[in-house]
């Protein structure tokens, strides 16, 4: 489904997974489902289908049809959000969170340019914005079912007070982790504090070379800001889940969930990020690498929450890359995620921060490899020596995604990839593929 929210003066439309939205999270938002499309824009002479629906019919893009509404909505969000016909790559990215088992993706991808060839239609944004304004004027949501309540503070101050008053309540941001506790683990979740209505938490600021990202910024917005700050984030931005998850999920949720295979942490630790933690009026800053105290454990105290994350300015000559290794290209969990931030001066490594996910119980730096690189000339021999050390630095686990041996091997190989890329050699498969 597609969710509409007011950002500035305009309407932001984003596809999300319906199965991971808790009902009160939708308060104050516009909601579009596949049923809303046909009445939106009847095309003369075709019955009453939206152009996207019509070209999917004409292009034989459905077989069993079970996945089709999801594809329609992912395509619809892209159609509404772009002023010109999207590229094939951006169509593929937009549908990377949808699965089709019978038809194959080609006719679905082809639907976008075909729809663009038909007269363009659009939703009535003014009316939607007016309805959103009306809802925004209603009092703060307090939703109760039986013993359970969901409150949605409207400001940072309200949130800080609510959090302190209800330290036992579960914070819920995008629910892309919490939702699975409900649907899969049937875990009882009692009171909840929703973060989605706190505007300050969504703010992203860039000044004097620093970057500050509010904990409630969506992964879509946070990753875009990170790529803008450091282009080396591109691989993670593309490969982190898929748009519907990134549209709902937040950076703060990823950090707080503290998974050893969370994809944002290695890169952020390599860039020396700090989290800003708040409890009531008290604020403190903790280096992200010190935030993780054990398997899915953080330094958060009762009543405390992550308010924001900030990154120091980039030193001159910094080489940064972050890569995700997973069994599937799209929407998969990392087997290993590796991040490298090396500062080079006069052909020597004068600072090295290397961090990995999937190699230990928490996202972790590789201090031995870093020490070996420090002060050394940046050349193939140094890299070779460092790879040998890196391959031994962690004791990862065997699990269903990969063996420990594979993880150690691939961790070292990522350093080689860094070296090759820095030397101008295309080192990733996607860089070698012919671009359509």
């Amino acid at each position, binding site marked *: 489904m597609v969710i509409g929210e007011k950002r500035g003066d305009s309407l932001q439309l984003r596809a999300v997974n319906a199965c991971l939205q808790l009902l009160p999270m939708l308060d104050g938002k516009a909601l579009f*489902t*596949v*049923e809303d*499309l*046909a009445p939106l824009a009847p095309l003369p002479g075709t*019955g009453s*289908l939206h152009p*996207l*629906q019509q070209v*999917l*019919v*004409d292009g*034989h893009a*459905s*077989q*069993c*049809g*079970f*996945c*089709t*509404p999801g594809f*329609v909505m992912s395509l619809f969000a892209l159609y509404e959000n772009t002023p010109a016909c999207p590229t094939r790559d951006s169509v593929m990215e937009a549908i990377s969170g949808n*699965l*089709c*088992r*019978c038809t194959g993706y080609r006719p679905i991808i082809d639907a976008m340019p075909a729809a663009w060839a038909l007269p363009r239609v659009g939703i009535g944004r003014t009316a939607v914005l007016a309805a959103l304004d009306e809802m925004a004027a209603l009092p703060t949501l307090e939703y109760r079912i039986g013993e359970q309540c969901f409150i949605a503070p409207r400001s940072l101050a309200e949130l800080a007070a609510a959090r302190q008053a209800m330290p036992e309540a579960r914070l819920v941001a995008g629910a892309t982790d919490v939702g699975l506790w409900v649907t*899969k683990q*049937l875990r009882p979740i009692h009171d909840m504090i929703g973060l989605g209505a706190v505007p300050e938490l969504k703010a992203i600021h860039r000044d004097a070379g620093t970057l500050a990202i509010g904990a409630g910024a969506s992964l879509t917005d946070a990753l875009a800001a990170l790529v803008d700050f450091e282009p080396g984030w591109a691989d993670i931005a593309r490969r982190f889940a898929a748009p519907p998850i990134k549209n709902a999920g937040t950076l703060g949720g990823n950090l707080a969930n503290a998974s050893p295979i969370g994809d944002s942490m290695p890169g952020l630790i390599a860039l020396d990020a700090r989290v800003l933690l708040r409890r009531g009026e008290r604020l403190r800053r903790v280096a992200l690498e010190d935030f993780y105290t054990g398997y899915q454990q953080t330094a958060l105290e009762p009543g405390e929450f992550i308010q924001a994350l900030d990154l120091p300015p980039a030193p001159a000559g910094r080489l940064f890359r972050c890569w995700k290794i997973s069994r599937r290209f799209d929407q998969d969990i990392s087997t290993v995620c590796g991040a490298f931030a090396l500062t080079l001066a006069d052909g020597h490594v004068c600072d090295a921060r290397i961090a990995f996910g999937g190699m230990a119980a928490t996202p972790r730096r590789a201090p031995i490899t870093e020490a070996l690189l420090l002060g050394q000339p940046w050349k193939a021999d140094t890299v070779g020596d460092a790879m040998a050390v890196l391959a031994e630095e962690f004791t990862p686990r065997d699990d269903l995604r990969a063996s420990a041996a594979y993880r150690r091997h691939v961790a070292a190989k990522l350093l080689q990839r860094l070296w090759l890329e820095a030397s101008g050699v295309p080192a990733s498969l996607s860089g070698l593929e012919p671009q359509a």
Partner: protein
Amino acid sequence: MNTAPPPIGAALPHESAHLHVTGEAAYTDDLPEPAGTLHAAPGLSAVAHGRIVSLDLSAVRAAPGVRAVIVAADIPGHNNCGAAVPDDPILADGEVSFHGQPLFAVAADTREQARYAARLAKVEIEAWPALLTVEDALAADSHVLPPVDISRGDVAAALASAPHRLAGTLHLGGQEHFYLEGQVSLAIPQEDDSLHLVSSTQHPTEIQHVVAHALGWRMHQVSCECRRMGGGFGGKESQAAQWACIAAVLARLTGKPVKLRLDRDDDMRATGKRHDFRIEYEAGFDAAGRIAGLKLLLASRCGFSADLSGPINDRAVFHADNAYYLDAVAIRSLRCRTTPYPTRPSAALAGRRACSPSNR
């Protein structure tokens, strides 16, 4: 008179395409539920192979919303959902034969209550060794069906006199069917001891048949309907029956409509996958590449029950010569019994897989 040319060769849209794209195409779970419909969930074995020592379901029965709990002994007719060979229990009886095998089932007012209750069972199983691979089964001489041999000509002589020889072993992996709509059945009691089933199945007649047997009824007392499926790929041919049987037994017991829509994780654990094969080949050929003789061993992992392993493995045998005429050929097909999960036909059956050795 209609003078329009027949639509042969014309690219006509799928008859439901306009419904697919608008979300109006109704699948089993979309149909309005009759008032009072109960929801069912199975309790699955966490052990691959063993003897059920005790099954304490008191906490399951006491959980909120629970209306009925059934075990194998509550099945009024035949505890079998195997359509081809009657060796597939609906609910495990005394013995567990695969990881994820249904041990009992719960019907409750809501699906969440049923799923929650199903997790409260206290199950004690004495674990026995499990055969996990084709190789394990071959070593233990464990089969679901007797071997099949098919031959023509004198292979031994053809191999012996061929100028060139090639021998080797191939492994072809199994696969989850991955229908996007999971297994789902709605059983609605009707007048005079009869029942209507709405099931997401590729084989409604077989469902009717198996469900009637499970209830101890005659075929005319059960009807089965499937308007459309959200994918099947062979995974809803025979194995939709298990869920239809469970829903039907619970419906008969409670007198209420019962819907069983498997959770995706349970579906992946409890349903069979496509057969994986170990193929040993030995070929003799001349300098022009002409095959003089071929000896093949096709050994597949059939899981713990026969299901459609007979026809599937036969198909592998029949396709093994691919497009070639072989003067001297000997094929042996072994249908191995293992205990991880049952295996089921997949859309392409085994034809395509069996072609691979002769293309090598």
